[in-house]
């Protein structure tokens, strides 16, 4: 006959397991990655008692996780996406903060060009000249300050890459360890629920750093690969990733896979992928754009400065200076060749970096992204390669496979400086002065004297234009030329407009303006550099290139914020679905607590009843 006592005890024990599970759930309500557990009960095999089966009570046969591999994987994937968007938005915001901060390049440009105008208004006034040099220094300081903020961001990305790789390695090791423990846990036949949760939580953390692909082997182990299939965890083995300096530019870190190959561009989503994406698509273009503006400013202003003369009567020298494009040798180069680059044509300069490759006989140029760039020339000093506004010369000694990276603009802004410190060296005056002969009897009137080419060898030779008749003139006794009212007379490197009717023997002369000239012709022209298109084939002004930079980083920031909002809602939905299944609900646990409490009390009552029955029997026997 069935034993009421043991049946009651079985209910008591089963309820205890149920209560423990509820308690465990309640205790872990705030544990990250915890999966709600439920107890499964089963009726014991009944005892056959001749014509019928008598039940023998219940057993708690398993404690199971409320778990869906699909929902969990969804969360991992959404979490990678959200973490990527979040990191990208944070980094892009810091670039936005840099350009909206106190270092406003446009204000500095306006201030500088204003001071050039002031020099034009008072060309020999030392105070205005001093102010112009001061404003030039402010401008350079602004370029440098922005450049250094960008450089700091670049260094921060290095630190973040390094920290992310450390985290990946440590999480990979945890997952591999847990794989081992879980395999052992299963060996006893039961499911090690909390170890599984811990492993999922480690994978979840990993997915925030880098996109993961997880498969489960038949022995309950996870095989984890990252990015484009780089194996990271296989059974109880974890592969270590590492960082290494860029092949060309030792100031930046790349991620290297176990095989030694660079996998920076294959990391996909997660915060680490976002860091590389930010560096390539936001920070580098912003730095290049800033450097390009600095080069354009230097080039355009120096060119105009060379068109004038300073207070000493000497031809205008460079007003700003900036270093030539940076060229980096690949660390894998076998040969001894080298490459040098100079900016030849600013109007063709863009914000790209270039790779020069040697295949044993020919050189070729590509952008860093691998797009082939057309190239002319032979690479000698006399006939350099012309690549995107650069003149590139190569020296002998390169062997097949050697390559070089050219960064024309990246750090240019930080190398800018003001080359003039002596106020008398500002070339405010036009180089030539035109004079009408004192004894002219005709009515010829001097018009604009325009400098076309200061490098003409005869530029500084005084020229006398003598009219041999009212319609004929010669320069310095040269061949006679015809004149009509309003004609432009062309001399060596200059043109002079004459109006009116000169008489025979009238003269006009053009000669160097000499020292201490209070002319402001070149200062006016230098102030005009502000509105002169110098970039993009002569379309974009220096100031405009800065507002393009603002638009560029602003757009990147706005897109990053939109993407973050979208990714956040995807993650929220995935988490809500997963939590809906796996999360602990306190009301549910409270109900279950009551349920098991009641079944426990009832089972205890069964034992009491069995005891009462047994006592009744004893009393009957004692009579």
């Amino acid at each position, binding site marked *: 006959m069935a034993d009421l006592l043991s049946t009651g005890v079985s209910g008591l024990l089963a309820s205890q397991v149920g209560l423990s599970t509820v308690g465990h759930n309640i205790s872990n*309500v705030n544990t990250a990655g915890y999966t709600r557990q439920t107890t499964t009960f089963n009726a014991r095999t009944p005892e056959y008692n001749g014509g019928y089966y008598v039940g023998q009570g219940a057993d708690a046969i398993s404690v199971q996780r409320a778990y869906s591999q699909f929902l969990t994987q969804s969360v991992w994937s959404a979490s990678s996406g959200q973490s990527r968007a979040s990191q990208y938005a944070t980094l892009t*915001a810091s670039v*936005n903060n840099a*350009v*909206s901060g106190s270092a406003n390049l*446009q*204000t500095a*440009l306006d201030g500088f*060009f*204003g001071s050039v*105008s002031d020099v*034009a*208004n*008072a060309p*020999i*006034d030392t105070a205005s000249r001093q102010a112009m040099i001061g404003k030039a220094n402010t401008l350079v300081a602004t370029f440098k300050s922005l450049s250094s903020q960008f450089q700091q961001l670049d260094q921060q990305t290095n630190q973040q890459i390094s920290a992310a790789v450390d985290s990946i390695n440590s999480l990979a090791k945890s997952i591999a360890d847990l794989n081992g423990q879980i395999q052992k846990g299963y060996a006893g036949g039961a499911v090690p629920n909390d170890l599984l949760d811990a492993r999922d939580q480690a994978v979840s953390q990993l997915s925030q750093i880098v996109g993961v692909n997880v498969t489960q082997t038949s022995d309950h182990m996870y095989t984890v690969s990252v990015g484009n299939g780089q194996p990271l965890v296989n059974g109880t083995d974890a592969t270590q990733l590492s960082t290494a300096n860029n092949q060309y530019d030792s100031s930046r870190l790349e991620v290297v896979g176990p095989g030694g190959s660079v996998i920076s561009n294959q990391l996909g989503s997660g915060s680490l992928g976002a860091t590389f994406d930010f560096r390539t698509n936001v920070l580098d273009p912003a730095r290049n754009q800033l450097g390009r503006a600095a080069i354009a400013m230097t080039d355009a202003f120096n060119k105009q400065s060379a068109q004038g003369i300073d207070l000493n009567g000497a031809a205008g020298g460079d007003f700003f200076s900036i270093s030539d494009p940076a060229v980096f040798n690949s660390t894998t180069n076998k040969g001894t060749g080298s490459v040098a680059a100079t900016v030849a044509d600013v109007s063709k300069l863009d914000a790209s970096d270039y790779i020069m490759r040697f295949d044993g006989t020919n050189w070729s140029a590509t952008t860093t992204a691998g797009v082939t760039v057309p190239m002319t020339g032979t690479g000698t000093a006399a006939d350099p390669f012309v690549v995107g506004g650069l003149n590139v010369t190569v020296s002998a000694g390169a062997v097949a496979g050697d390559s070089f990276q050219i960064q024309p603009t990246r750090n240019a802004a930080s190398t800018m400086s003001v080359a003039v410190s002596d106020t008398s060296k500002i070339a405010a005056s036009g180089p030539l*002065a*035109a*004079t*009408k002969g*004192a*004894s*002219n*009897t005709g009515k010829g009137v001097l018009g604009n004297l325009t400098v076309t080419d200061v490098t003409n060898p005869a530029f500084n030779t005084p020229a006398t234009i003598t009219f041999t008749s009212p319609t004929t003139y010669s320069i310095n006794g040269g061949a006679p030329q015809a004149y009509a009212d309003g004609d432009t007379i062309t001399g060596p490197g200059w043109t002079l407009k004459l109006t009116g009717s000169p*008489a025979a023997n009238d003269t006009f002369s053009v000669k160097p303006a000499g020292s*201490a*000239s*209070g*002319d*402001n*012709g070149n200062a*006016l022209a230098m102030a*005009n550099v502000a509105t002169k298109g110098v970039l993009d084939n002569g379309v974009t002004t220096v*100031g405009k290139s*800065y*507002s393009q930079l*603002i*638009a*560029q*980083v*602003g*757009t*990147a*920031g*706005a897109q*990053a*914020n939109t993407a973050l909002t979208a990714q956040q809602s995807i993650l*929220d939905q995935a*988490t*809500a679905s997963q*939590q*809906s*299944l*796996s*999360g*602990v*609900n*306190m009301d549910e646990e*409270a109900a279950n*607590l009551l349920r098991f409490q009641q079944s426990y009390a009832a089972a205890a009552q069964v034992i009491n009843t069995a005891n009462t029955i047994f006592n009744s029997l004893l009393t009957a026997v004692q009579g």
Partner: protein
Amino acid sequence: MRISTSWGAQQAVNTMLDRQYDLSQTQLALGNGKAIQTPSDNPAAAARAVDVSSASAQNDQYTRNIQSANTKLSAEESTLSSAGDILDRIRTLTLEGMNGTQTDQSRQSIATELRQTLGQLVALGNTKDGQGEYLFAGSRTSTQPFTLSDLSVSYGGDQNQRMVAAAAGLQVATGDSGSDVFMSIRGGNGTFVTTAGATNTGTGVVGATSVTDASQWDGGSYTVNFTSATTYEIHDATNPTGPALSTGTYSGDSGTINFKGAQLNITGTPAAGDSFAVAPSSSQDVFSTVAGIITAFETPGGGAGMNNQLNAQLQNLDQAQTSFTDTRTKIGARMNILDQQTQISADTSLQYAGTLSDLTELDVASAASKFSQQQAALDAAQQSYVKMQNLSLFNYLK
């Protein structure tokens, strides 16, 4: 659907955090009045704001340029006005000296006054502007342009004009060189000069001269030779012994002589053999003109020779006065352009300010209303969170 207690709570907290962030952003905007905190708030407007504020700064610079040009032009204007007054005084003194009642001695004292006046004129030519630059030195603004030595004045400047950028593509001259104003003044009547022969013995004095028919005037040099008190011949000055080009009759005192479109008014009675040379004008500086007058007064004797010289110089003096007036007219025209440009700049500046305000400045009214909406949303999120947290079955388990 099941709700996970901790996720539900976390979601509620996230909602509150989001509402708080919105509120703090609006508060930040209300605090600094900017619609764009970083370019990512509105990339197109942020970039446009940079362009507009740069254009505005440039516009302000043009206004400053115009102010500096106006200062220079006003200084030049008032200097030339004084110089014109001096020329008037010289003219008065000259006419006074030509009066027949004057003696050598009284003419000498007029010459003495004229010498001082010449000094004044030179000093005016050497006027400096507020920045210590000579006004009339062309671009040699640190070199004194006019140097007086006895009666001759030399010019040390050049013929350049300094320009000012008054607007994009608009440059206006901020001065005139001393060479143009004081030195390159066409002599005589502007077309030709008439000089009495040094050996004239009659009392003929050339008065006003003019070109009556410009199409006939060929710019050559001629001599009017009186063959008697009433007849004359015109000769080509390059061929004085050749045949006469034309002959004519002088009608006596205050008669006119006409040839090749030129007209000479002559007073007095020329003697036979007297001659008057007519040559194309060349330039004569105003100082030489004054010096010529002084020399004429200081030369004893007076008479027709002196009057002829003085008449010629008075013509030159009129040309100088015209040069000053012309220059002042040009200055006036330039100042007009600059005034118009100042007005345009002021209008443009207002437009820029308006655009910039539209682009970057916060609409406070709508931001304030947004703030109270967001406040209400946060308030609702907080209250519902507290209410939700109180709803637990455990509250009923005793």
